[in-house]
């Protein structure tokens, strides 16, 4: 296994940036997830690492080798595709053997390695079948097997679980993570599903518009999103964002809504708000850090219940604060109904403040 380094990587289509100066380092044995909405450049980035499309600028290193101009076959990588890309006219055995055959291994070695991989993945009984005779989950395993038969420097995975049904996806998620741990494999994993990234990855790279927004551990990304995009993309339900205006009265600082209510800020939060480039501030809060009151309460601001979504162990309530929606989680035992007037209290220690102009997270000056 090896480290992968992207340095100022650029891919242009015509005169658009598909990948805009992306730099990141994937350490040896690390599982890195590239996440973002569709069209954010994550798959393009993966294809650049694979060598499936020419790079427009920057450098990519796999191990110590600069691979910019190397053919995919010379990069010593393995890849799992979203549609599995199993060779339809070859049996499972032949599919698994193909990468070894192309590398001119001796026949007994090929057989031994294929059997090893098949045992690990529990697909020995499928070896003689054709891909079209397999279920989606089985095809997925074979695709994984084709990557595992070799010891590549890095595994590239392009949404490998997104064609599976929900239950199988959860199961494969843990299996995949287990394999990666056991092999201490270097994995670059593309997904649009932030939950997959959060649950599996050592680090996640959140992309949007071809730009790398944040590259950090899932916990860091979850707790300290660098901007409103990351804040709203990671976590389910998403972080609630409320655009407000900062008002200073003497030494006190508060956030004012267009409807007229005020939310006083703690001294620490006030210092953050002062560093903003204007008086426009976006307040961010995860559902678990928000309290809901049925009566007016000091420090709580008024709102109105929009919908109530019981999920079993938690009930999510969407509350309108003026034009903004705030999600609150409640015990299922709390009785609440739409259109009820409620009061919302934010936890000053856990709230996030973002610059309303630049969307960047605010830090104490």
């Amino acid at each position, binding site marked *: 296994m090896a480290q992968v380094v992207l340095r100022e990587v650029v891919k242009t289509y015509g005169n658009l940036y598909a990948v805009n100066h992306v730099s990141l380092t994937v350490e040896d044995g690390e599982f890195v997830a590239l996440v973002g909405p569709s069209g954010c450049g994550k798959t393009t980035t993966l294809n650049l690492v694979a*060598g499936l499309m020419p790079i427009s600028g920057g450098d990519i290193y796999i191990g110590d080798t600069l691979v910019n101009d190397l053919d*995919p*076959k010379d990069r010593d990588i393995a*890849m799992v595709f979203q*549609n599995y*890309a199993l060779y*339809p006219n070859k049996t499972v055995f032949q599919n698994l053997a193909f*990468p070894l055959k*192309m590398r001119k291994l001796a026949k007994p070695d090929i057989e031994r390695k294929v059997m090893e991989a098949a045992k690990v993945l529990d697909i020995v009984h499928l070896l003689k079948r054709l891909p079209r005779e397999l279920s989606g989950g089985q095809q997925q395993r074979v695709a994984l097997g084709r990557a595992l038969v070799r010891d590549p420097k890095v595994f*590239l995975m392009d949404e490998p679980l997104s064609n599976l049904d929900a239950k199988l996806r959860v199961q494969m998620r843990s299996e995949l993570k287990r394999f990666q741990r056991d092999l201490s494999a270097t994995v670059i994993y593309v997904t649009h599903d932030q939950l997959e990234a959060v649950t599996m990855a050592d680090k996640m790279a959140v992309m949007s518009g071809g730009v790398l927004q944040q590259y950090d551990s899932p916990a860091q990304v979850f707790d300290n999103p660098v901007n409103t995009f990351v804040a709203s993309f990671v976590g389910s339900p998403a972080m609630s964002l409320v655009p407000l205006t900062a008002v200073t009265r003497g030494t006190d600082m508060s956030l004012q809504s267009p409807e007229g209510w005020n939310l006083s800020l703690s001294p620490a939060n006030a210092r953050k708000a002062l560093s903003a480039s204007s008086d426009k501030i976006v307040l961010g809060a995860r559902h678990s850090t928000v309290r809901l009151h049925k009566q007016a309460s000091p420090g709580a601001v008024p709102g109105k219940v929009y919908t109530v979504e019981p999920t079993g162990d938690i009930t999510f309530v969407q509350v309108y604060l003026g034009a903004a929606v705030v999600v609150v989680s409640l015990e299922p035992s709390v009785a609440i109904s739409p259109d009820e007037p409620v009061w919302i209290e934010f936890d000053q220690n856990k709230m996030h403040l973002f610059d309303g102009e630049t969307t960047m997270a605010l830090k104490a000056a």
Partner: protein
Amino acid sequence: MTSTLADTSRSAARKPIDWWRWSGRVFLLFLLIFTVLPMAWMVLTSLKSQFAAMQYPPQWWPAEPTLENYRKLLDPSNSVGHEFLQYFWNSLYVSVATTILGVVVAVPAAYAFSRFRFPGRTFLFFAVLVRNMFPAVVFLMPLFLLMRRLGLVGTHTSLILTYLTFGLPLSIWLLKGFYDNIPIQLEQAARIDGATRFQAFYMIVLPLSSPGIIATSIFSFIGAWNEYVYAVTFLNNKDKLTLPVGIQRYFTEFATDWPGLMAATFLMSVPVVVLFLVLQKYFVRALTEGAVKS
């Protein structure tokens, strides 16, 4: 599966008569008779003696059926049979050569049109398509002069070269449709697994496109086998004639031998009809591919 005009039977089961369905059946019966009668009469005539065929009113059923006409055509020791078998062989040679060369040239071109985004690609592709529009006769005169200049008049090469361009646009168009349906990830996977771009094409894509290759081959073969205009113009040597032209010679020399002509026509149709019946699925797919989008 789908229900349309003719398919109202289930919903209309309680009605005494389903007029749409019955008129559909009557119509199909009419079409079947229209289609089959001429062919049936050809076969019936070919089983008659010359004398039995030239009667009025005609013998509806051969009174004394005979295979004499076929025996004569297939017997190399008699001059008629010798010529006929020579024509048959010529047709086979020209058609097979056209088919093979056509595949060799069309496959890479179709693949390129399907996969690569090179400048001029769209223009080239429509140039290929528009060739479908051109009448054979427009090309006949200049090609005749060209072949004369190249010293190819009277050779089978001149026909093969010409038929090749006849078939190419359609072959490329059909094969491109097949390549479009092969996911590009298969090639990418192969390249990551250690194949060069060419190996990925040769080892993965080519075998997958064999239905397309079969379909286009049938088309080229049938087209070449049936072609008449160029053959009649380019070939001047009696030994070189292909069947459609050879049969015409035969007709004018033995102008009155209708049963013999019908037998020859029958034999000439056998290869293409058999080919069509065996590979019907591919033929139909090739015919409709591209024009019908789902």
